[in-house]
């Protein structure tokens, strides 16, 4: 019971980074990005190439991949989403779906379908108060917490973070105040890319690295972001923890194969009963 709770907590905290990326992207760009799963997959494979194939330690590989991934996201935005910016969210979503197919299959083209893992030594799990934990879970908790604190600092204390929140809140008002939306959009993509890269490496460390690894988290990550209120960073954090714990606890009663049913039900319930989510603000359309 306690063990399941802890596992759920770790699952949840793994999802905080992608959930935050989803919510930031949605806040600034106003569309649900279905390519985030594949972006995580690609990042995990890039880290795999540096770590397992070139023999770098995992930490510097992750840092390099995070920066590369952030820059790649900006490039992808310029090529794919920028020309479609004014066409409405449906077009952007369909484009992101297509992009997801492309990215996932680029990974498949180079590495095939078989599962890979990082070159890290396997440590024996240790016990604290009867809860079995392993080193990877500890790393996940520490990295995610540090990243969340950094994000909190970035969003509240730096001019870029404040400008991002302003654009997310009201783009035209932000423009009036002299905030250049193009620059903010690039920053948002970069930060989202970094978050997704770190999230991808964490997931790859926890499970195996394989082409569908990122997209298998898609529904849960969206559920976390929606539950917290799309566009609310704090909500994404709490939502991810809640979704992780609830879906892990639910495997005590439902078959684990249907794990994704839980986030799905959460989405449906939130949409019907509290559309603005946990931390989001109810808004009136037009």
């Amino acid at each position, binding site marked *: 019971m306690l063990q399941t709770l802890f596992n759920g907590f770790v699952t949840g905290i793994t999802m905080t980074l992608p959930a935050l990326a989803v919510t930031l992207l949605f806040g600034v760009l106003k569309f649900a990005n279905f390519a985030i799963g594949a972006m995580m997959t690609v990042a995990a494979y890039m880290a795999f190439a540096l770590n397992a194939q070139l023999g770098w330690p995992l930490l510097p590989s992750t840092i390099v991949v995070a920066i590369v991934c952030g820059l790649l996201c900006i490039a992808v935005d310029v090529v*794919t989403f920028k020309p479609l910016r004014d066409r409405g969210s449906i077009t952007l*979503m369909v484009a992101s779906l297509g992009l997801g197919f492309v990215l996932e*299959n680029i990974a498949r*083209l180079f590495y*095939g379908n078989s599962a890979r893992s990082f070159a890290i030594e396997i440590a024996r799990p240790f016990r604290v108060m009867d809860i079995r934990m392993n080193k990877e879970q500890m790393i996940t908790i520490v990295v995610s917490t540090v990243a969340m604190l950094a994000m909190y600092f970035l969003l509240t204390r730096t001019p870029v973070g404040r400008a991002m929140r302003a654009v997310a809140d009201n783009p035209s008002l932000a423009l009036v105040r002299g905030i250049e939306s193009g620059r903010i959009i690039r920053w948002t993509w970069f930060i989202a890319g970094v978050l997704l890269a770190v999230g991808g490496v964490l997931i790859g460390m926890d499970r195996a690295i394989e082409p569908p690894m990122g997209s298998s988290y898609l529904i849960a990550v969206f559920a976390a972001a929606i539950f917290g209120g799309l566009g609310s960073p704090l909500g994404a954090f709490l939502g991810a923890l809640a979704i992780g714990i609830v879906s892990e606890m639910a495997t005590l009663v439902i078959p684990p194969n249907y794990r*994704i049913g839980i986030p799905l039900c959460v989405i449906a319930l939130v949409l019907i009963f509290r559309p603005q989510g946990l931390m989001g603000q109810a808004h009136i359309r037009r």
Partner: protein
Amino acid sequence: MISFIILMSIVICFSAVLALALNFQWGSGGMVNFGLAGFYALGAYACALLMLKGGFNTFFATLGAMAIVAVACGLVAIVTLRVTEEDYFAIVTLGVGEMLRLVALNEDWLTKGALGLSGIERPFNDWVAPTSYSYVMLGFCALMVAATVWFLNKLARSPFGRVVRAVREDDVVAATLGKHVLWARIRIFAIGGALIGLAGSLHAFYYQYIDPTQFSNIVIAYAFMAVIAGGRGAYLGTILGASIVMVLLEGSRFAKDLIPSLSSDQLAAIRIIIIGVGLIALLIYRPQGFLREYRLQANLSGSKQQSP
């Protein structure tokens, strides 16, 4: 070669029905369906199981499959009750589609899991000789495509068709004009669902064997590509779009002869990359597709044809 063309035409036909269903839901009604592959699987499995376990004949099994997918889609549309933003609905459809595929994969007692269902009966099998059966199948599938296009065109010109487009363009305005938006959305999605059920049944009849791998996300990529290429809301264009996509896909089989070092996994990956890039390129460079949607035009001067 002739038989290859006939078999490919059959594949084009049931892909076209699937793409037409998507074109109605998404192109006309503005409701994105990212769970298409799951609903398609539901249609195929429902049809197969109604025959194998329920003992129905092909006709009633098809009707049953259409009804089941229509109900499933209608239920999904209820989540738009309070939130009408497309993003949320797209996420929900993605999740439901995934769930449906998981059920097909995991409920061994019903679907035989990864083994799949075999021995699916075909329509008119007793009446024609096996050698000429593919012609009959092609005729039947082509008839279904024609019927679907006819039905959707009729629908587009009906009062309900105008409600459908109004809901897509601006649901607030539609609601202000006294249209019941939720009910319209449920019907849009259910009608599309019935057509997905039809496509799934044809798929099951053609292959006579279905397993979960046939209904992967690639189906979604194909169908979206077909709809975008053909033109959103333009039903005849969808047939054109489906034909182009399928010819490209089947043609890419011959790419293996050109580059023999590619494994089949890599080839499959390249096909999907091409589809994905094509999808984005079409959205950027030719978002209106090749053909235009039907528009009601006021006939002011009383002459037969108005310039558009």
